[in-house]
């Protein structure tokens, strides 16, 4: 076991994948010589060469579109999108090509493309650098969508994503890149939990709190704070957003009867909607209250000085917990 930051754990995972399979190629803007603006690909070009770690021209459609061609040729491209807000120029190639080509070719052409996306806010960045676009992709049939939240998962999940024969949108919580954790660099994928599996982080009896990415740490903190207040929260890190591993969420909600979902993305049509709807379908008779969504507002990402009034934080999550428990909360007395 080694102590690594999340960024370095990803770096190690990418190195692993490059070493294991010569068909793996990394592509992106500034990922080679510079090692990526977050240094996630640091040193890999020097180690594997310019044909394995490829600095590409400045075009996201170009990146994804050439990755499709490489996949046709049998490669397993790993594309870095520099920041969440820059994925949209590549949206057509992702939604109309990457997601559909296995279906459109009747299973003859595989699209084992991994698209890495540093996502989310909280770093005081400029416009377009703090977005949470995951719901667009979770709504797109043919894609898998995952989000890691800690170094150990990051290391394993990036290798699993690359090994997957399906295209994977791989979301990295950029404000946690520097968080350290234990990573087993020799872990075998065979023994690791599949990337599609959710992970229950704390056991609790009163409320089930579901989240992913950067907010997982915030949710844990909320659980700790709530415990002091006598409220026992079960925190689940979804890890996979498409498909969602509902089994542990269902099991938990059957016990707690109360569900809170937190994410940074806006509420309208966000992941919280899907999770609330699905858990209501599956656990209706166990629910003591309507599932509560604690999310970013439905606004363009605001200027840095306002982001703390946009992002769900510990207090807003606890307010959501109060709401689902029917305790005094910000909406007490407001007719729903």
């Amino acid at each position, binding site marked *: 076991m080694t102590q690594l930051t999340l960024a370095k754990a990803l770096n190690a995972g990418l190195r692993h994948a490059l070493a294991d399979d010569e068909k793996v190629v990394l592509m992106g803007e500034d990922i080679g010589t510079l090692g990526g603006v977050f240094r996630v690909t640091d040193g890999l070009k020097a180690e594997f060469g310019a044909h394995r770690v490829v600095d*590409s*021209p400045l075009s996201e459609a*170009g990146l994804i579109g*050439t990755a499709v061609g490489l996949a046709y040729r049998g490669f397993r491209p790993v594309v870095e999108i520099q920041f969440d807000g820059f994925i949209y120029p590549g949206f*057509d190639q992702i939604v109309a090509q990457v997601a559909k080509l296995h279906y459109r070719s*009747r299973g*003859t052409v595989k699209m084992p493309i991994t698209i890495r996306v540093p996502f989310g806010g909280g770093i005081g960045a400029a416009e377009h650098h703090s977005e949470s676009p995951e719901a667009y992709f979770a709504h797109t049939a043919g894609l*898998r969508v995952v989000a890691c939240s800690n170094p150990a998962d990051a290391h394993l999940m990036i290798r699993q994503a690359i090994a997957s024969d*399906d295209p994977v949108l791989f979301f990295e919580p950029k404000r946690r890149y520097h968080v350290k954790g234990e990573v087993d660099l020799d872990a075998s994928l065979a023994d690791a939990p599949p990337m599609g599996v959710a992970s229950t982080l704390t056991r609790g009896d009163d409320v089930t709190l579901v989240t992913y990415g950067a907010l997982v740490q915030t949710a844990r903190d909320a659980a700790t704070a709530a415990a002091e207040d006598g409220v026992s929260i079960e925190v689940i890190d979804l890890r996979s957003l498409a*498909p969602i591993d509902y089994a542990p969420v269902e099991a938990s909600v059957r016990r707690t009867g109360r569900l809170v979902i937190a994410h940074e993305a806006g509420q309208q049509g966000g992941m919280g909607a899907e999770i609330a709807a699905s858990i209501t379908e599956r656990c209706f008779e166990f629910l003591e209250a309507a599932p509560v969504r604690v999310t970013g507002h439905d606004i363009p990402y605001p200027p840095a000085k306002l982001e703390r009034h946009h992002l769900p934080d510990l207090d807003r999550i606890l307010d959501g917990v109060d709401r689902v428990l029917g305790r005094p909360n910000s909406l007490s007395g407001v007719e729903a």
Partner: protein
Amino acid sequence: MTPSDRDATGLLTRPDPFVQLITPTGERVRDDVHDPWVRDIDLDVLARLYRDMVVVRRLDTEATALQRQGELGLWPPLAGQEAAQIGSARALRGDDFVFSSYREHAVAWVRDVQPAELLSVWRGTAASGWNPYEHNMAVPQIIIGAQALHATGYAMGARWEGTDTAAIAYFGDGATSEGDVNEALVFAASFDAPVVFFCQNNQWAISEPVGLQSKQPLARRADGFGMPGIRVDGNDVLAVLAATRIALDRARRGEGPTFIEAVTYRIGPHTTADDPTRYRTEPELAEWRERDPIARVLAFLEASGVDAEGLQRDAQAEADRVAADLRAAITTLADPEPMSVFDHVYAEPNSHLDRQRDHYARYLAMFDDASHEASGSEGGAR
């Protein structure tokens, strides 16, 4: 190019000079640069190219007829573009990989795709007609221009693997306005990708004349992206063959991409759903009919002493056979199994979709087979 080279719609009236080896009336033009590339094309081979073109035109006519008779949902005719497609496709090696749009039926023919496979998609029975790896031809592309990037990526990979395999991207004049095509030129140049960008300028993008997309001959686009551009008479199968061979040779020698503009014309409608009389004139059509790609080859062969009548007869017989086989095969094509709607969404098991599939199977199981068959689309599965 001065403005007077264009008519009111911006259509190019006096085309830029382009490579032409056989004139519309069947004369052989001597050309020191391009002749060496088609030295092996003797009268026999040319006759085979002629046969190819006759067959694919017949195939196209048959498909249009099948659509009119309700056997296909839609059909985008290639009529007029036979030389551009046959000439370029016959320049390819078997291991080269083709990325086409929706109109490259003649290319598919050259790649040995079964006509019924080709049409199955237009009949709506399958998402794709063939396994790309059996023909080294990707599934056709409807999103305009997207395949140019796929071809580029494929070519980058072929180069990184150290092979001398090339890729070719087919797209239309309209496609040159899409970002994807331009980005493909950027990537291809940057990585010296062994790819040929084969643009069939058939003068129209549905109802829009090429002059709306570009005021320059499209081949000139190439230079600014750092690659040679060749403008070729797209109705001259020999010239197209020569140009494509030149481009492929560059690609194989590691010299990177080439852009070819094949100047041709879509004689028919955009698709069977289109009414071209709304946007173009009879004189224009008549002018292009005189540049027919098939007639000129026959004229040249005849002038060269070949038994033109016999050749024509044989070709037509083969074409009719292909058409009859096609009709027989396509009209008996079975509808896909209902539950196959879920197949191949993912390559690996997917818990969500597997559950949805299970639910739909239960839903279907509620109905007995008899009533099931009877229902229409609005009425549903019942």
